[in-house]
């Protein structure tokens, strides 16, 4: 069966201001429906790779070719690494709803009732519906992480990028969240790239990579 390439890294390198390459000559392709686990030590360049994928930074050498649908950010959902405590009062439901910005609403096109219903449904998926009206500032790190996952799920993206999404979760929640992400991805035909330095079960992924700045190795499953 022919696989559709969603995104291709071609000899991509990246260096921050000190000119030392954090990533060097990386080449790989993400296909539609891939569920990829990317592991590696701290400082291996995993987060930098994600920032390149979602367009926050540009490669210093090489090219990233995206399918046209990925060119605008509507089709990408992202769970950032650190779910720091919110500095503003924002309800859990509102915070999930914000995941639809740029997709269902933006400056002159505001959110609708069905968007709120969808936000509630996503909170149910991560078992946080009873917290819908609570202030995000009152939640624990693990609870904020579940809300961040719900905020990504609501986007129904072509590509879901997750940076250490299980750091604050206990063993049971970790396994539940990974199963949820995997099942939602399969149902929606999404591609997933999950970055983690934790030892996670391979069984939920169809490709597993190890990254170490200058090389990336795909482990056969």
């Amino acid at each position, binding site marked *: 069966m022919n696989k559709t390439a969603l995104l291709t890294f071609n000899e991509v390198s990246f260096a921050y201001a000190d000119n030392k390459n954090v990533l060097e000559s990386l080449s790989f392709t993400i296909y539609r429906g891939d569920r990829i686990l990317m592991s590696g030590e701290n400082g291996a360049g995993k987060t930098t790779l994600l920032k390149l994928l*979602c*367009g*926050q930074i540009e490669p210093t050498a090489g090219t990233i070719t995206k399918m046209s649908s990925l060119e*605008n*950010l*509507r089709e*990408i959902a*992202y769970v*950032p690494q650190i779910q*720091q405590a*919110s*500095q*503003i*009062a*924002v*309800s859990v439901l*509102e*915070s999930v709803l*914000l*995941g639809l*910005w*740029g997709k269902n*609403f*933006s*400056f002159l096109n*505001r*959110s609708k009732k069905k968007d709120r219903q969808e936000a509630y449904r996503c909170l149910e998926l991560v078992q946080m519906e009873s917290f819908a*009206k*609570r*202030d*995000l500032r009152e939640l624990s790190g693990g609870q904020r992480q579940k809300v961040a996952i719900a*905020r990504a799920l609501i986007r129904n993206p072509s590509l879901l990028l997750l940076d250490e999404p299980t750091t604050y979760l206990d063993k049971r929640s970790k396994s539940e969240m990974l199963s949820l992400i995997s099942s939602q991805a399969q149902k929606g035909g999404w591609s997933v790239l999950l970055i983690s330095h934790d030892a996670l079960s391979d069984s939920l992924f169809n490709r597993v990579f190890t990254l170490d700045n200058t090389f990336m190795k795909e482990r056969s499953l």
Partner: protein
Amino acid sequence: MNTLMEALSIPVIANAAVGMICAGLSLSLVGTIIIPLHLVAIRFTLMHVGLFGAALALAFGINPTALAYIAVLSVSLLMGILTKNRKEQASSIGAIFMTSSLAGAFVVLAVTNVPAMEIFDIFAGNILLMSPLDVTMTVVLGLLIILFFITCYREIQLILLNPELAQVLGVPIKPMMNIIFIVLGLAVATALRLVGALLVDALIFLPAVAALRISRNFLSTLILTSVFGALTAIGGFLMALYINLPLGAATALMSTVIIILSYCGNALLSRR
């Protein structure tokens, strides 16, 4: 009541009342942005830039308020452009502007022999010197700030919640940050004129601090900030009128009372 009506029949005091209420309702909203974005120190920078602008104006015999506004706005715009990272770089760049503006003001004072007190009068603020044009400008600015919060409600919320996520979702962070710096500059320059530099916080910062303590979502934060800002302005104005206190000090006292009440309110809400 009669005293109040009599006072308000005097155009200068009526102007002051309208200016204060409008500033309380709208300028305070800026506080809800500067706290989460760690721009608290930037308001100091802008005050000193205003001082430099006023010193230059007095040296050249032009309107000090106008030049203070121009200086504050120009630096706000520059800071928006220069600030790529919203936390560290804003404060570093702010420190450079603050020190150089202060140095510039002292150099102007030394070279031109402008009496220092004339410049520091601006820092003390005097709402009774507000002309109808000043009042109109405050009302227009207030409406613009409220309009900014209404039209960019979700975008502001996203930037304050997580700027990195906002960027990935496609929110135009750089233009939004430029607008935020300009709004902050305008608010500081206007508050300077009303209550003076030392008490700018009473109008811009403290109502937002109080609202953030007791609100549970973003909309209630904005509404409570605006209400607390208006209460601060009205309370300060009435205290100044009835107890014959300096307006700036009365406004600051009122905002302190609101802060104390908000801490009590938060303690009560947490127990429920």
